[in-house]
């Protein structure tokens, strides 16, 4: 068995001590029923609430290997990015199994759940969750909502950082009946100029960060009509922080927020 990094998963038996180095995968470990066996999580793992009871091993990116190995894990779960390759190589040397899981887009959710289920031992439960999620996703996509609202997803104000088409947030907006004005960008986020934002004339500004960009009242932002008219929509919750089985709740929340707005 290989993981999403093409790296073989060296497990002799079902893992009993799991460390998760990504908040999104911590959530997913609980979802596939292996939460009881989680012995380490990252500092900012916010969901589910039970995750708070699991000891923190610090940062997920560039993790502290001493903290990780101190939990005597038999499996360490990574968010798949090339930045983790050196850490994984170190774990190989230490004889600790690793599992890299791709989780960037909504289409990644089902394969991720299935992979985690297979590795942690309850494939049946995972396959059923994954199957249900995929069916829901297909249904939402099939609804073919007319994309009325032009939405600016703003992550930061100075410099202006927007969410691009590469992010699952862009997909969520699409499913909720909106259109990300920067959905042509392949990046998940990018620095752009206010002029570029003004030129794309968003109807509303969607604010997804916990600490909100302070754009209201700033003279240079008044050139953006949606800001001038204070058409802000705020959404909260970790379901907007990473792709997860809770995407449905996120879409529902967004749909409700967007349908009260007029183009």
């Amino acid at each position, binding site marked *: 068995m290989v993981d999403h990094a093409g790296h073989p998963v060296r497990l002799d038996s079902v893992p009993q001590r799991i460390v998760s180095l990504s908040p999104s995968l911590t959530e997913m470990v609980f979802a596939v029923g292996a939460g009881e066996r989680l012995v380490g999580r990252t500092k900012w793992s916010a969901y589910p609430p039970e995750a708070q009871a699991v000891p923190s091993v610090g940062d997920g990116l560039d993790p502290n290997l001493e903290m990780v190995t101190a939990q005597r894990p038999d499996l360490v779960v990574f968010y798949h990015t090339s930045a983790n390759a050196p850490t994984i190589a170190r774990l190989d040397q230490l004889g600790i199994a690793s599992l890299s899981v791709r989780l960037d887009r909504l289409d990644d959710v089902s394969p991720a759940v299935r992979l985690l289920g297979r590795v942690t031992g309850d494939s049946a439960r995972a396959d059923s969750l994954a199957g249900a999620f995929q069916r829901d996703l297909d249904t939402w996509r099939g609804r073919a909502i007319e994309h009325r609202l032009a939405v600016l997803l703003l992550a930061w104000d100075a*410099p202006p*950082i927007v969410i691009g088409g590469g992010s699952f947030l862009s997909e969520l907006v699409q499913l909720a009946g909106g259109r990300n004005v920067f959905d042509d960008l392949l990046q998940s986020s990018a620095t752009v100029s206010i002029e*570029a934002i003004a030129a794309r004339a968003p109807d509303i500004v969607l604010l997804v960060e916990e*600490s909100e960009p302070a754009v209201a009242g700033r003279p*240079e932002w*008044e050139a953006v009509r949606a800001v001038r008219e204070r058409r802000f929509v705020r959404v909260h919750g970790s379901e907007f922080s990473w792709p997860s089985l809770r995407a449905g709740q996120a879409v529902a929340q967004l749909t409700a927020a967007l349908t009260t707005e007029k183009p």
Partner: protein
Amino acid sequence: MRWLGLITAVAVVVLGAVALGPASLSVGDVWRGLVGSAEGPTVTIVRDLRLPRVLLAFLVGGSLSVTGAALQALVRNPLADPYLLGLSGGAGLGAVSAIALSLTSPWAVPIAALVGAVGAILLVYRVAVVTGSVLDTRVLLLGGVVVGAFAASVMGAIMALSPAPEVRNALMWLLGSFGRASWQAVAIFAAYAVIPLALLYTLARPLDLLALGEEPARFLGADVERAKRHLYVTASALTAVAVAFAGIIGFVGLVVPHAVRLTWARLHRSLLPAAFVVGGALVVIADAIARTAFAPLELPVGVVTALIGVPVFVLLVRQWAS
């Protein structure tokens, strides 16, 4: 005559930069936008976004160049630039602290950067004032490096302990951006900068003499201690406010003074004004590239100034050496 040519060239650059932007507007649209007869968002884009942004870039670039020229003569080191004196570290620490403390008011980050820069200035000044009121420029250099390094390490600690992509975003801002430009920002910057710029200009002759060394300067009639203090305070004040408005824009303050010395004038009475307009124009060009090269994506303007500044400088030095 020479000046007329230079100012015309700079005016062309400024107008050209107003004509360029991620929103594709024709020259006619831009003109109608400027005079206010265009329709829809064009007037807003040209008048309220591009024009103040170009002007702010010009003012900041000019101020940084003038400051670099003055500091190079003050510390008698051709590698001196406006950020040499620990300012960038102090400003960065201020900005990162503001974000780590979740201060979210619109001006929180610039003001915190300003406070950090001024804090670094005072600390370096305190270190460098050895006895009484004598400012030792060698200690000033060392103090700047040390305070800058210390601030950078505190900043690193805050970043390591903070949750947030927000803190990284603050660093993005520090790399230099005129995204905050507005007429309000232009007015505040211009009102603030005019006094230090004028004061620097009155110090043009002492600067000529200081470049010879402190003792020769004294014997040629310069009030060296007073001139050094005024230079340090004005240069710091200009840089701090430039950082607050636009983050850290490297290479302008280092390269432009040398380029102007090699091609235009070495006496500060002409060097300073020429460095102001050339530095302003360079940053306007850099910002135009930052806005348009990968539109709608935007590059940090400091990256672009280095990309333009370094090759131009290498060419100049080679030409001059031969």
